[in-house]
Each structure stands twice: as structure tokens, then as C-alpha cells.
């Protein structure tokens, strides 16, 4: 019996949106290699929408699948919509995650939200120009 759902395996084997964005509008980094997983999300925002999302992940199969799924769920969405993505909704879209993986590997939504926060803080600084 496989540990991971077909959906997790599919995203792990063919992850979407791997990479980096040159001059991103926001960057979010979560996790650390001690606990296992590390994710960096890059976003490009246009007209309040996530025009492009890329990620890099150090971690297990679940961590890679989660990153890929989050990038797919958020792509083209408004920032408000992207902020409604939660670890639970990501796990649901992946047809479930093993219990022990839910907390440690499911950092994708957090990384995306951090990238959005980064975008907001840059906007504030930029707005004063």
C-alpha cells in the first residue's frame, strides 16, 4: 500500500512552477533544514493578481508535492484569494497527506503567505517614493 496518494505522487514526479523569478515582487522563506523541510516562494504581482509563482524546496516527497500544489492553486488568483489557501485546503487538494507529514511538510501555504507579506511591505516602502 503506497504511503502517498496518487495526486501527491503525480505532483512529486512532475512538480509545477519549480524555479526562481528574477526581480520578484515578493519572496517567502519558511522552515529550516534541521526540522526537515525548507521552502522558498517567489511571486510576481500584477493588478492585485499573482501573475507568476515559482518555488524551490529542500525536503521530502510531500514537501515537494505541497509546494507544487500551492503554486498551482494560487496561480492567477487575487491576493485575497491566495490568502485563503490553508494547509488543510492544500492537503485536501492532494487527496490527503500521511498524518505525520501534515505539519512538517505542509509549509507551502505559509511560504506563499510570507511572500505576499513581503510584497505588501515592499509596496509600503515603494509607496513613499
Amino acid at each position, binding site marked *: 500500500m503506497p504511503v502517498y496518494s496518487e495526486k501527491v*505522487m503525480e505532483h*512529486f*514526479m512532475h*512538480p509545477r512552477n*519549480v524555479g*526562481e523569478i528574477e526581480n520578484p515582487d515578493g519572496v517567502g*522563506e519558511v522552515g529550516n*533544514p*534541521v*526540522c*526537515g*523541510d*525548507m*521552502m*522558498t516562494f517567489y511571486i510576481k504581482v500584477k493588478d492585485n493578481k499573482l501573475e507568476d509563482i515559482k518555488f*524551490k*524546496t*529542500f*525536503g*521530502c*516527497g*510531500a*514537501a*515537494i508535492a505541497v509546494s507544487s500544489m500551492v503554486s498551482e492553486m494560487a496561480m492567477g488568483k487575487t491576493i485575497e484569494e491566495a490568502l485563503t489557501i490553508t494547509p488543510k485546503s492544500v492537503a485536501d487538494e492532494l487527496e490527503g497527506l500521511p498524518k*505525520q*507529514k501534515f505539519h*512538517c*511538510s505542509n509549509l507551502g501555504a505559509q511560504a506563499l503567505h510570507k511572500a505576499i507579506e513581503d510584497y505588501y511591505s515592499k509596496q509600503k516602502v515603494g509607496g513613499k517614493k
Partner: protein
Amino acid sequence: MRKVYLDNASATPLLPEVRQAMLPFLGEHFGNPSCLHEWGDAAREGLESARSQIADLIGVTDTEEIIFTSGGTESNNFAIKGLAMGQQAKGKHVVVSAVEHFSVLNSAQTLEKWGFEMTTVPVDRYGLVDPQEVKKAIRKDTILVSIMHANTEIGTIEPIKEIAKITKPAGIVLHTDAVGTVGTLPLNVRDLGVDALSLASNQFYGPKGAGALWVRRGVRIIPLFDGGVQEGGRRAGTENVPAIVGMGKAAEIAKGAMAERAQRLSALRDRLLTELPRKIERVIVTGHPQERLPGHASFCVEFIEGEAMIMLLSSQGVAVTSGSACTSRALKASHVLIATGLTHAIAQGSLLLSLGVDNTAEDVDYVVEVLPPIVDRLRQMSPLYDKYIKQTKGGR
């Protein structure tokens, strides 16, 4: 697709001759070996031949010194708790190494809850225990030292004979967890100088669910289980006769085949140990480069994580394992790798390839061919590799 099983440290395949030997005991010889009729006699005969075969494999002449168990974990629990309880009139201090199997380490922790004290001796970067560290750890009230014969995660073979030279004059019971070596390397308990030794069937092409603890006559051990008087009153419960018979047969075969197997597998292992670090940058060989189990090649691949490597290798038909935090159900990095001084980040890239009798040179070639692109693929995704490239190669 080619299938390459390189996880013999987790489980070895059952030899056809072993399965054959077991079949009658899954059929007509179903009797209870404690019973005094024909059915009991047949089962007892199977059990006692297995006892002789195991004794023969480890150089024991007094077959009553062999106690059958359900496997390595039970043997280790029995040894640590039973021997400590048996010697507690003399003291309540035990010594183990930092790289022991959890069945030893956690048993020793249980002893602490029971009022014993434990000292853990460190290992060097190869995972070797320095006998002098054992000497330093020993106190007046030390009653038991347990150091494994070979570490199944990093392959390192420990200097048990040297340690015995320290424990013996001090009158301290020495146990060794030899699950990694019995049936793989020729060994003799008298020659090693130990007082007790654990072994497990599924490490040498026997079935799961069978193991043994050898305890030298005269060394007191308290049973773990209360019940009947099986195994000379030391291990209650009806023996798992089919599995024990299989273990006996596997032991008999191992005795004749070990030397040739070890020679062949060491050559295959050495190809993995030299070829993979040559083909992949930033790979660390874990464990001792020479003093290691035949067929055992272990590494840490920097900047990526072990479970992801396992899954991609599996998609190419290759079965391996890892000591990474993400691979373990406890989500903790291997205590063995950390004890050798590796960081948690590096330990995450752990990969263990363990060869067995079915493996060929073509299997090794195949892994050497498929692993580098897998590592490359995961590194392209890794923020840690990114940082490394930017720091060392001046960006892109």
C-alpha cells in the same frame, strides 16, 4: 523496467532452500514442541536442529546457551533488561554506545526509569567506539556493557574484542548486538570475548519473526515474559517453530557461503563507495571506509533529502533506504549520523544501499547510472543547492 533491490539491511529475501525446510512445519509438523507425543516430537526435533545450526554458526558448543526469540528487537530487550536485572545485586550502572539500535538504547532508557544509571559512550566520525572511552565510562558499580558488533545504518564494525579486554578483567557482562554480522561475517563468541550476543534471522536470508540470544552459561538473566518453561525457563511462550527452523537452515547455509558472499559483496560495495562520490559532487561516505559490513554502502548527499531520493529511485525500480528525518516515522534525523558529527541538514541527505546475494555487478552499474540525474533533478529544486552555487561559483 529493471528491478534492483538494495535494501538488504531492512530485510533479506528468503532463500528457496529455507522456505523448503520450513514447509513441513507449516503443514504436518504443526505440533507444540513442549508436548510428549509424535506431533510434539517432530516439532521439537525441528527446533533442536535449528538450535544446533545456530550454535554452530556462532561457535557455541553448549546448545542450551541459545535462547530463541522473535527477532533482534526482542533479543536486545531481553539482553539489556534481563542481564541488568540479573546482575543488579552487584550494581546498577550500564554502558552503551551512542550508535546502538533503538531496541538497545530505549531498553537502557527503560532501565533508567527502573532506577539504573546509563552512560553513553561517543563514537568518532566513522562511527567507531574507542575502547578507551568504554574504559573511562566504567565505574565500580558497572554491571553491563552493550556495544553493537556492526552498525546496520553506516556499516561500521566495532572493536568488540578490544572492548572485551576491558570488561572481562573488571568482571562486567559484555553484550553485543550482532544482528548486522551473524550470518554475514564469520564470528565466534569465545573469540569475540562476549558474554551475550543477539542475532536475527531476517538479516541472513531466513524468515522474519525469529532470532536468538546467546548467553554464556553461568551469566544470570531474568526473563522478560512470565509463563511456561520453554527455552530452559528463560523465554516463556510456544516457540515460532516454522520461522526458527527456517532460521536454522539459513544459518547452516550461511556457514558454508559467508566467506564467498562477503568477498563478492565487498567488491560490489567498493564500486558503489568509489563510483558514486566520483559521479556526484558533495557526497559524503558515512561509516568507516574499510572496517565495514560487506555489501553495505552508505552516503549523505548534500543539499537534498533522502525520502525524495528514495521515491525517485523507486520510480526507476531501485529499492534503497535513508536515515533522514522525513523517512523516519519519528521525523527525527538518524541518531547514528548525528553521533558521527554530521549536521541535521547533511543527515537529511542520507542514503543507504545494502547489497545481498541476489545482486550483480549490473545492478551496481544501473544504480551508478540512474542516481546522478536524480540527485541533479532534486538539487535543481533545492534552495540549499542554490545558496551553495551562488556562494562558491559566484552566481549565475
